[in-house]
């Protein structure tokens, strides 16, 4: 394998791909019901036009161009165009609201913003007075924007046309700019997930990203024939790492779904070979399977149950590198053919050779489920500051509670206080305009301080949690709240769980409206809104059983004693959860302090005043009373008429 990743830049790679396979499909987007292909040649051509367009607006080497929008070919075209002329790109999550948008644009001093559509343009127009440095906004979905007569806004097509005009007198300018680009130039600015405060902007160079891609694909080879569906925000490092860095280095085709609502069916049509998603995607797939199996007839449930237990046995041998043996092998073939393959197909995972989870811890039970149905799911550990990945599972050496072994040429050390330290060529060059934070994160010897606590278990890294979230039980064992939360979240009915406490463990749970809703329908339970459903006594009873079941798998000292069902879902617009769906504990601790205190005391009920802010900015106060449920002495009903929920639990 060549070491080209460390000496080139992404625009140069694009030019190489376009020269090698001009008619190969680089990007395809489903539009008007058809996969519309963009060849490498067209891709390079579009990038050149937009690069010229950006240059005509005065964008120069070293600047940052911002992009806000869903995954579309234009996102990548804008990114590569900026990089071609030596600028970097910063992605803003399309769901971001005012304060976050202003923060990122101010920090990055972006003069040009590429926005997707009317929704994003409207958001920018709203905060325009706060953005004196933004000179031009270009949008690529013109629907609804025809009537906006404003010099500040420009159509993406017009920007391209402007670029073509600008380029007429400047032959060879583009090639020259691309060749001036150095591997150590900043390529991408990624926002850190910011569970604590407003996001910091981490700067990653071409060399950072491409050496990561080089190392990753040396462990898990990818080639031009592979397929990848890009549906997670490109502002997220995980998507940049797979779709952009690995995509350009290995030249595979990226597919963009038609609409958020069609993601699943589009993914099934494409049948990707490789996938990287945060735990919530895997968790929601698992809930979907659990619910659908549960709703199936007895024969299907029985067949799946049998096939699943065979798959589970095979998986537990395979992950430790052992074969299945003759008898089990035949059974496994049968199980795969009758039940497991169809389930994989339904999930769009029929062709997946390997897939990754990262960004947050995934419960070992969820992990085990995917291996049992024959999906080679691996854990990735890393963070934005090290291009998203530093440690991963190797095929046939997967342990469900670890995150694997370091990538090639990546050093790993556990500091004396238990913090995980990492060093490699992918460690970022610093935060934008925040020297202090940079020197706190990367020390003089180049070690990245992750802030996570962990330990090594014969070569495999085990991550406990964020160092400051690691708790100590009364008997002295160190444990992570995520461990408890993941046990709770394995229930198909639980969407999010937040565990508290050191003496008595308590938990706050939000229900999954889809699964609990279908359960309620099945039980002929009427309800109106989420709040109504979450407050229902029968739902409380159901969840008590679920928590009881989760407790059975937890050590005595950290079993959940009291819990409550929150009246709302955690929402990134309320800052309770990040855009990548990590719980912001500091916000939760502050906002729900009354609830947490009452849980700690073991009260029976608790009231709080909730302030609801509507989208138009008005707010209303409501008093809410919640019941607290106790697990101590709880005995699940013996002969309940409820159908058992199939959940793959062992």
């Amino acid at each position: 394998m060549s070491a080209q990743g460390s000496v080139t830049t992404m625009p140069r790679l694009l030019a190489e791909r376009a020269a090698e396979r001009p008619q190969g499909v680089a990007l395809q987007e489903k539009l008007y019901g058809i996969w519309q292909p963009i060849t490498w040649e067209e891709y390079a051509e579009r990038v050149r036009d937009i690069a010229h367009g950006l240059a005509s607006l005065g964008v120069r080497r070293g600047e940052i161009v911002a992009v806000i929008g869903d995954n579309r070919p234009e996102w990548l075209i804008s990114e590569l165009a900026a990089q071609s002329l030596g600028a970097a790109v910063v992605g803003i999550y399309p769901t971001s609201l005012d304060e976050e948008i202003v923060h990122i644009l101010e920090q990055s001093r972006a003069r040009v913003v590429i926005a997707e559509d009317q929704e994003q343009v409207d958001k920018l127009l709203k905060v325009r007075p706060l953005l004196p440095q933004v000179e031009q906004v270009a949008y690529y979905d013109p629907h609804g924007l025809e009537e906006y007569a404003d010099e500040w806004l420009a159509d993406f097509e017009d920007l391209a046309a402007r670029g073509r005009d600008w380029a007429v007198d400047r032959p060879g300018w583009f090639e020259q700019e691309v060749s001036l680009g150095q591997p150590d130039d900043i390529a991408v600015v990624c926002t850190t997930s910011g569970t604590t405060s407003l996001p910091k902007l981490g700067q990653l160079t071409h060399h950072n990203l491409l050496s990561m891609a080089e190392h990753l694909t040396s462990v898990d080879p990818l080639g031009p024939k592979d397929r990848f569906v890009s549906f997670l925000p490109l502002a997220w490092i995980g998507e940049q790492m797979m779709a952009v860095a690995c995509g350009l280095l290995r030249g595979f085709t990226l597919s963009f779904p038609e609409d958020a609502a069609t993601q699943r069916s589009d993914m099934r049509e494409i049948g990707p070979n490789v996938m990287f998603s945060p735990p919530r995607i895997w968790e929601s797939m698992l809930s979907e399977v659990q619910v659908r199996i549960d709703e199936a007839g007895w024969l299907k449930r029985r067949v799946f149950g049998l096939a699943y237990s065979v798959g589970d046995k095979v998986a537990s041998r395979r992950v430790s590198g052992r074969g299945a043996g003759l008898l089990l092998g035949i059974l496994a073939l049968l199980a795969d053919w009758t039940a497991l393959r169809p389930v994989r197909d339904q999930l769009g995972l029929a062709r997946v050779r390997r897939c990754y989870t990262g960004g947050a811890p995934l419960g070992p039970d969820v992990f085990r489920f995917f291996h049992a149905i024959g999906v080679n799911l691996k854990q990735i550990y890393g963070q934005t500051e090290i291009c998203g990945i530093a440690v991963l599972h190797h095929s046939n050496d997967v342990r469900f509670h670890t995150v694997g072994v370091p990538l090639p040429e990546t050093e790993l050390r556990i500091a004396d206080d238990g913090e995980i330290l990492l060093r490699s060529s992918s460690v970022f060059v610093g935060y934008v305009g925040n020297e202090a934070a940079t020197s706190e994160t990367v020390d003089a010897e180049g070690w990245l301080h992750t802030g996570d606590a962990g330990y090594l278990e014969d070569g495999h890294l085990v991550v406990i949690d964020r160092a400051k979230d690691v708790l100590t039980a009364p008997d002295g064992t160190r444990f992570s709240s995520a461990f408890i939360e993941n046990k709770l979240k394995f229930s198909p009915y639980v969407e999010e769980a937040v565990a508290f406490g050191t003496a008595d463990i308590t938990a706050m749970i939000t229900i999954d409206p889809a699964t609990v809703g279908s359960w309620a329908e099945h039980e002929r339970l009427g309800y109106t809104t989420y709040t109504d459903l979450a407050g229902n006594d029968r739902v409380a009873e159901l969840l008590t059983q679920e928590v009881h079941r989760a407790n059975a798998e937890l050590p005595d000292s950290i079993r959940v004693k009291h819990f409550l069902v929150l009246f709302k879902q955690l929402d990134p617009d309320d800052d309770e959860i990040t855009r990548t769906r990590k719980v912001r504990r500091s916000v939760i601790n502050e906002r729900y302090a009354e609830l947490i205190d009452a849980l700690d005391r073991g009260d029976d009920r608790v009231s709080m005043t909730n302030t609801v802010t509507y989208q138009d900015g008005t707010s209303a106060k409501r008093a809410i009373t919640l019941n607290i449920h106790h697990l101590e002495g709880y005995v699940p009903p013996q002969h309940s008429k409820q159908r058992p929920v199939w959940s793959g639990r062992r």
Partner: protein
Amino acid sequence: MLSRAYRFELNSSRVPVGEPLLEITGVSLRFGGIRALADVSFTVRQGDVHSVIGPNGAGKSSLLNCASGLYKPQDGHITLHTRTEDGVAKTHDLVALPPHRIARQGVARSFQNIELFGHLSLLDNLMLGRHIHMKHRLLPSLAWFGPARNQEFRHREFVEEVIDLLQLQAYRHSHVGALAYGIQKRVELGRALCIEPGLLLLDEPMAGMNAEEKEDMARYILDVNELRGVTVMLIEHDMGVVMDISDRVSVLDFGKLIGDGTAAEVRADPAVVEAYLGADA
């Protein structure tokens, strides 16, 4: 690379904005001894969202049915104005035309009670909306050959733009009968748009919807009107929605027109307030 801008026009009326498109003059409709409409006159202008409101039984649906040719009023005229490609003004008396000829003049409608083909897919339902624009002969169509095939491709492209506009992508291949009520209403709107209307008649497009679905539907109607230039005449009960989206409002009560004007004018009209909005409103 395909442009994201739409290629097809949805609005087929060439009447300049602000000029009369549909003139209702002295329309009276009786069912035996019941007078459903009594001497109703008003004008719908090109480019407006024109709402017709009134209590139950006021004659709103009857009026829409007269305009689309399902009912024949005993007295009065309903005149549709059109322009030929060279800009020559023409008028058509809809009272004298059968429903299919009215549809050919670009009057499309949706129904209060959903009238879709439940066992066909969403795509087939919308393609049926294109039917009046298809000019194929029997043989090539049966053989799925040559011009008939190309023609269908072109119509499918049109339909896909409507699907995109109304964000129905996820349901393209679903049987319409199995879709949620709010979605079915949207499909009805879509099918009416596939006719390439000069005038779009919507009979209670938001009936039975929750607040969020209503908001969505109002948004789609405004998109159709403001961005695609289609004149909309609609019947609606939800006063909030009507006042928000209408350029003009006509009020019926027991078959009589008791008010006609902008939303603000109508709201301030004492006769209307008493008859419909309630004396305290």
